């Protein structure tokens, strides 16, 4: 096994000189010097959940809100480095893995920067806030040979939200062909998923003074400048298109990524997205009734918001059978028949092992890009309130220049990606 020392030597020789010596080693434990280290960017809410992730130790944190930074630092016993500018954290030679847990409008830039510094990356969902940024991340990671992990996991472990089953047996059922083809997957409250419509923005925000602990300009970063209001930032930022896409942005990749895996769409995109929703405010994210994605082969992913949709709809509907919540299938004797098929291919869900062996993590920058793209396509269709057609090869909308301008949004100086 490669030790941390060897690893660092191989990943970036210059860092060897600056390794902080670790002296006391407990018996039977991973020596701290062999343990991989992480630095977390964005420690207001989600970022704090990154502290205890297995196999790595926090050595640095970064936040543009001083209060958040100090509160999070207090959660860690060891003395760690605290940063205001994420680039300083990326620069920190003690950091092996950069965790990105900021609002999504920063994910793309930070991931690209971390890749350029030769760091491995652990990024919160949604992967990026625009389709173009996702592509940049994919390119940068490829160019520098980093290992990238997107932080949603239902395609390879755990019970998949309200569905009452892990995805693996579902994948086996889908792959067996017993349901037929094409399939229609419905993600709604009735199939066990909640779009969290409390992430809606306010359509009228009065300008407020920026609190002294917050560097609002840096918080906004690439996003358009808009006068500060507390509702834009921190716990409620998801309600604004500039930073995220409400419940769709928050939960979309959690819910859709496993579906993309189920349908075997890890390297392609839908050709059409249709929305049924109230008109969206240009700034504040609102609610929606449904978003329907259609693939070239006829497969569909249907999202129903709130309580909409028909409660009897199966999670997966196929021409030869249906699967409902809690893995209820209406094919007679399906369990027996299914057992005869092989299990789905094992997926590598051990990030530390991936870092060691330099192999792609189960959910990486490539399949992560494609599931984030589904989320982002939905956001664009909602904002424009119309059906969009997409070319999965060129990865752009067809005959819709306005929609294409939302593929690659411009960024506020000096940020770009």
């Amino acid at each position, binding site marked *: 096994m490669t030790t941390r020392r060897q690893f660092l030597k191989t990943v*970036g020789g210059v860092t060897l000189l600056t390794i902080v010596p670790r002296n006391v080693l407990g018996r039977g434990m991973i020596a701290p010097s062999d343990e991989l280290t992480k630095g977390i960017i964005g420690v207001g809410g989600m970022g704090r959940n990154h502290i205890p992730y297995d196999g790595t130790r926090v050595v640095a944190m970064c936040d543009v809100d001083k209060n958040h930074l100090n509160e999070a630092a207090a959660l860690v016993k060891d003395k760690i480095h605290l940063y205001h500018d994420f680039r300083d954290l990326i620069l920190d030679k003690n950091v092996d893995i950069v965790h990105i847990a900021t609002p999504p409008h920063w994910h793309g830039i930070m991931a690209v920067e971390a890749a350029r510094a030769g760091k491995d990356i652990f990024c919160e969902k949604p992967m990026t806030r625009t389709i173009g940024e996702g592509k940049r991340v994919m390119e940068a990671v490829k160019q520098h040979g980093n290992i990238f992990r997107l932080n949603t996991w239902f395609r390879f472990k755990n019970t998949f939200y309200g569905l009452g089953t892990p995805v693996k047996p579902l994948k086996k059922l889908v792959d067996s062909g017993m349901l037929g083809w094409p399939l229609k997957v419905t993600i709604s409250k009735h199939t066990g998923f909640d779009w969290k419509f409390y992430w809606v923005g306010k359509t009228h925000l009065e300008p407020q003074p920026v609190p002294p602990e917050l560097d609002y300009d840096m918080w906004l970063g690439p996003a*358009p400048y808009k006068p500060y209001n507390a509702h834009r930032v921190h716990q409620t930022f998801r309600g604004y298109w500039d930073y995220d896409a409400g419940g769709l942005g928050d939960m979309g990749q959690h819910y859709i990524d496993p579906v993309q895996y189920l349908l075997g769409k890890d390297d392609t995109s839908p050709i059409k997205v249709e929305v049924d929703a109230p008109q969206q405010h240009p700034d504040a994210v609102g609610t929606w009734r449904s978003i329907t994605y259609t693939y070239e082969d006829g497969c569909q992913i249907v999202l129903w918001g709130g309580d909409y949709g028909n409660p009897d709809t199966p999670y997966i509907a196929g021409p030869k059978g249906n699967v409902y919540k809690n893995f209820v299938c209406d094919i007679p004797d399906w369990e027996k028949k299914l057992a005869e098929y092989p299990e789905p291919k094992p997926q590598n869900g051990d990030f530390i092992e991936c870092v060691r062996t330099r192999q792609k993590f189960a959910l990486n920058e490539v399949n992560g890009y494609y599931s984030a793209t589904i989320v982002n396509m939905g956001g664009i269709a909602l904002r424009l309130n119309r059906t969009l057609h997409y070319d999965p090869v060129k990865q752009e909308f067809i005959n819709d220049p306005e929609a294409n301008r939302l593929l690659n949004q411009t960024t506020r100086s000096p940020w770009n990606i």
Partner: protein
Amino acid sequence: MKQIKKYTTFLGVFLLMMSGTMAQTPQHRTNSTIVADVLAQLPAQNPSQYNQLMRDLVSTGEEGFMNLIGRLNPPGNKSNEAVDYALSGWIHFVANNDAQRAIAASACEKALQQPLDSEIKAMLIRQLELIGDDSNVAVLSALLTNERLSGPASQALAHIGTPAAGEALLSALLSADTDQMKTTLVNALGQAGYLQAEPVMLELLNNNPSGDLEKVLYDALGRIGTEASLQPLKKAAKQEKYVYGKINPTAAYLSLLNRLAESEPGLVEKEAKKFLSEATKLGRQDLKVAAASVLLTLPSTDKMGLLKKALKDGNIVYLTQVLNSYPYQDDEKAVKIILKTLSPKASSDVQIAILYWIGNQKVASAVSCISDYLNASNKDVQKAAVYALLETGGESALISLVGMLKSTDENAVKLAKEALEGYEGDISAALASVFNDCSSQGKIAILQLIANRRMHDQYRLVYNQLFTDDEPVKTEAAKTLRYVVAEENLSELFGLLEQTDDKYLAFIQQAVNAALSMLSPEEQMKQVMEKMNASDKKYAYYVALANSGTPQALDLIMKAYQTETGKNKQAAFDAIKQCKSFDAVYALQDIARNSKDKEEIAQAVDAIIEKVASSDKTGAVKYLFLRNAMEMAQTVKQKNNILRLLGTTDMYQAMLFVAPYMDDPELSESAAQAAMNIALNNPSFAGAETTAILNKVSKTLNNPDADYQRQSIRKYLSENPTTGGFVSLFNGKDLEGWKGLVGNPITRAKMSKKELAAAQAKADSEAFNDWKVEDGTIVFDGKGFNNLCTVKQYGDFELLVDWKLFPGPEPDAGIYLRGTPQVQIWDTARVNVGAQVGSGGLYNNQIHPSKPLKVADLKVGEWNTFRIRMIGDRVSVWLNGELVTDNVILENYWDRSLPIFPIEQIELQAHGSKVAYRDIYIKEFDRPEPFRLSEEEEKEGFRVLFDGTNMHEWTGNTKDYVLEDGNIVMHPSKSFGGNLYTKDEFDNFVLRFEFMLTPGANNGLGIRTPMEGDAAYVGMELQILDNEAPIYKDLQPYQYHGSVYGVIPAKRGYLKPTGEWNYQEVIADGDHIKVILNGTTILDGNIREAAKNGTMDHREHPGLFNKKGHIGFLGHGSEVRFRNIRIKELKN
């Protein structure tokens, strides 16, 4: 209503809308009116409304756009919400229509030239960024010198991205005087990809820029630079020693190299090679990767040399990426070299990189090289080797994987087993072939694989292992047996059942059950009974009996449990736990209630929990059994499980039941989650009590999702009432709020106050003698028929109450609603009185249904739960979660000529047998005061046909016409289930009523009509119609609202808008018909004269001159409301 040819009309309008040939410009309205109208309706609620509103808005052109701009307020206390929706909606709506897009863009421009607040202008620029083109470059470039707006304007220009836009940015850059402005412009030029900016940028770079300007210069040159930028970027990168930094020329240099690769391959190759060697010197693997990946795309690179070096280098980061990028297809030599490097002597990193490469690229020729690494001591190597095998697949991979099972290395066996689970194809024979050569561990893995894939062909192999001396293998074989058995193995399996050691009995039983399950329950019973009767090991067969799930089986096993002892009793108990039938819950409850053995109780409770959780019973039934289980639960885990499951029942009582457990630290989280789930799933439970519980839940929640959950709670509380809701009618301690029964509502009304008081006092003392509070329940155990009555009277309400009958001679009870019998409760076994229909019917109804729709009772002795809703004179009853009475009129038992009382007490019936009630909650619904005649109308002799509380005067389709909020409401139904008629017939009369239409509503007032046939012809129909709706634009005059349909037209234009109440008076006096709508006489005519020369619709109207008939509402398809209906009959 009259069936109007609205479908063709509607289709016509629809086509016009679709074709776009007819402008949808709302005629005769000024642009500012249109804008105001649209703003009032924004945001659009659905796509069709959006399209219509935007069509209207866009029709106002520039004038409308500027009107909108004029309504914008600077940031502050006035909201721009509606205008925001209007402007952005407009922009999106026209974005793909060149002509209209140009109008919107030019209007934006015009607005930008007005003296507006900067934030408003920034917003407009962001709109223009989405739809702008060359024609907008001028106005945007004028803003590039504005400190606040240069950013948005430069971004808009970057997105427009044409040469003109680039030129504008560049010329602004040339005249920019601050670094900040330059930074903004350089960044935009980079994003615009404007190549002509390169010399200017290089110049700027020469002048020692710093900070952000330096950063964006590098970034931009990386995007747009040519050969000319290579050296400056390289120099800067080198100066930084290629270390990542806030200012990162290395990244720019790499971007540029990649960009130039196609046009300048020679130059790039030279540069990249140098870069690779510098990176190698620095030991920077990420930069080596970047250099190599450029090189590998170039045609002239010595790729083989690069590959060889990488293999020699041996760094896993670098080697992995080179292998991934190497175009090895058709390069057999490269494959050979790579495979040659794979040697046991190579470092583990090299082995890992190459093995994964073999797998990723599916290099079939490499399979033979892999086997050496399957047992490597380095686990990562081992895993990589297995991965490579599995990915390349094929017969030899199978042989290797199966061979691994023979290993004594635990990890090897584990990896091989995982891989074989996913191996596509038949692995059965291969597994069998190595079985005997495997250690215990390998054998166990094989047995597990056999089980997973249900390899029936390996039944014999598994069976034989039941006789091995290897205990772990034997146990695994016993576990596996159930997955490979078939019906024909049954006799052998029964044999095993007789022979087996008790240690394996449970597994053999499962195997027997698996084979039995292929037979019908009756056949199962037969076979098992046969074997069992011949056996002296009866206990072994109970589980097989239980598998049939038949009631006889359950009875037999329960009897065994009660009569047997020791092993046999235990076996019977185990069988009950496994019994397929839900009815086993009753048996398990009996066992738990009577047992003194805590372990036995705990097991019974576990089984109950499991049965309830996996059943498809209603939430109500689950709630009842879970509540019982809570009383018997032995462990914290059981209690938590019960609480969690209660949270899925959607029962108000369950929410109240779980809430107090939030105070128990060991149960608080489950209780909080359960209460929250019930509340959030059921907005109808909202109210004061639910609010208090949710507030407590918010404080109690302590889990990773708690913040999300608190958000959901806040949302629920902001959207639902936080006061009112259900209140408890029984405090659990005494009979406060209850009283005895005196007479009935009619006799009570005739008593004087004094008489009533005296009678009440006597009734109370009798009632409190017969009714007792025991353990938080109200129990009647008396002899008489003294109902227990609420002190308060109720009108419209929803009542929740749990009840329980006790075994005895004639179990019987009921709930009186508004002082009137009754929602029936009785023992379904009493078939002599017809009780087999079940409880929950309106027992005393004679005209309307009196029987429940289905039997939903639980066994006598169990708690049941009612949900009773009474609105007006209609009653719905849910018994144990099943709808058993569906919106049925409750008849007045005390005087059948009267409607049900509008308000009266609720009574718990005593019927001479023991009965208990608990958890009584009521929610009252507001309703308007019943309609009363004015003094004048009373004097004139009007009588009320509908006062808002009951539909006693009406008959016919009482299903689609329902009573809501004091109105008769016609709900559109697929059934088109007929009309609503007065029970009485009328000849000449004055009818007064109010009605409210929804858009496009179509109904009709039938008069002098029989109940059968089309009232417009067999009687007379006065049209009721939203004739202003666009879909009715082509109506015939005799179809207008108020017309005698087909005969005399009414005047159009006097209807109130939809959603408002209309007041109508109809006078039918002989041949003379008059209709007054909202004070205007819209029809005044003589039917005989009108029909003299044939009717207007050229149809026969045989019923036109009926002397008398019913009055009816003739509706379908759309919602209409009626209220305050009264009539005066005219004397002839």
